[in-house]
């Protein structure tokens, strides 16, 4: 199940159509501050939007892996259902998405 979620996250990023691709590119450059050469191979979103058990399990899976290079981790949790440990501080590849700007790219 968890593997499926990761695959979907990666798949969603790699399959955005042309205009969305441009939006994603602009987002990564303007909001995350990356150059094109620094673009991640995968974007992993940790959220509390799904079933609480699934969100917790997914966060537990991601927590020890947030130092993975070439991955961008977008954190959209406030601790209501998921333990914030490991997601409290922004780093180069762990970023908060509290205003849901990444999700809005798809709308």
């Amino acid at each position, binding site marked *: 199940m968890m593997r499926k979620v990761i695959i979907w996250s990666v798949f969603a990023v790699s399959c955005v159509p042309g205009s969305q691709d441009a939006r994603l590119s602009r987002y990564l450059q303007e909001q995350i501050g990356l150059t094109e050469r620094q673009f991640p191979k995968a974007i992993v979103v940790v959220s509390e939007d799904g079933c609480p058990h699934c969100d917790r399990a997914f966060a537990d899976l991601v927590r020890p892996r947030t130092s993975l290079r070439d991955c961008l981790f977008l954190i959209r949790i*406030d*601790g209501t259902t998921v*333990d914030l*440990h490991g997601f409290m501080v922004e780093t180069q590849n762990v970023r908060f998405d509290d205003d*849901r700007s990444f*999700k809005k790219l798809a709308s």
Partner: protein
Amino acid sequence: MGPITENHLPRGLKLLLILAACRGPEPQIPIDPTRSLTLQTDWKFTSPFSGLFYDYYRNENLIFSGDLRTNLILRVFNHAGDSQYDIPLKAVLDTLEDINSCALFAPDSLFVMEVHSPRYAIVDKQGRVCRVSSLAHALCPEPGNRYEVSGYSNGIASNGRSLFMSAAWWGDCDNTGWDPSISRFQYIQRYHLEGARKCRIAKIKLDPDGSKVHFGGCNILPHLTDVPRFSYSGMERVLLNGKLFLFSPVAPYILQLDTGTLNVVHRIPIDFLNGPAAFFPPPITEENLQNGGDLVSKPSIAGLAYDTSSGYYVVAVLHEVPIDTPEGENHLDRPWSLIVLDQTFTKVAEHIIPGKLYRPNHLLSTTAGVYVHRNIPGRAGVVGPKTFHRIILP
């Protein structure tokens, strides 16, 4: 160098200053930010794990706020927001599967309800699990009806003697399956039509020899019983001034229930601006089955509080917003009406509060007055102190 006059200013800046001067006055809202109450927590204030307990012996309110995910503690404050003590939650989290809601029912005792389960635990001030028990024996109070109790929507109301939680009807006691002779659509229609007549609240009296559950508030939404409509089982409940009140997004009134019998004592219509403060759910059709009638953008009562010194009630009503309002701006960030009712529940004032400034569902009725939670967006609103501002009443 002489004084700077407007002739010295660049033209663009001059225009900006003129525009700023022409801007209308800031809206006057009856909330005083200088009289605040601050809870020092670095976790989100969430209704199922936060609330008030009135300590009759010391004649004061205790405010509590719990964090079940990161810090695993529940912090207890006095009415002024001074931290009193922390109750560790690790033991109870190791004991129960997951937590639906919790509430202080004595200064040194915490009631903790398991998720989707009749099990509960009693935890002492040191965080020790004193008892794990089940309400399973009491959740089918009569042949035909099975209920689940929950405090998730707006927390568990406690007066020290009883706990009040919402009751969700789950169908027949002895037959919970889906009748294969009817379609899913017919099943949902039937569920909502029958469910509209069922009980909405449960009163739990804790007893080591078997806690008792009394269901009440039955068939209290008659306007939903003509044809199958989305009848949403949960009702929010709040104890104020020794009285028990229920409200719902689909009820244009607040109901006062007798705390003993759980029968309706008063039906208090709530209007805001020019309309009823609720959504009248449409009949269930194949077309609107997925969106539930689009409840989320409709007006609804979000909170209710009582000011002991003035005797006024405060009702917070969320305004309707367009159906296509972006996610994140369509729920608690909406403008809302702060309505003041007197002791006879007659409206004496209504003020419009702009959206995003406050959380109208987080009203605290303390002995010092009624406070509303200041909204701090983003991460700072989670890890920073939680500030409540006092509502100014006539």
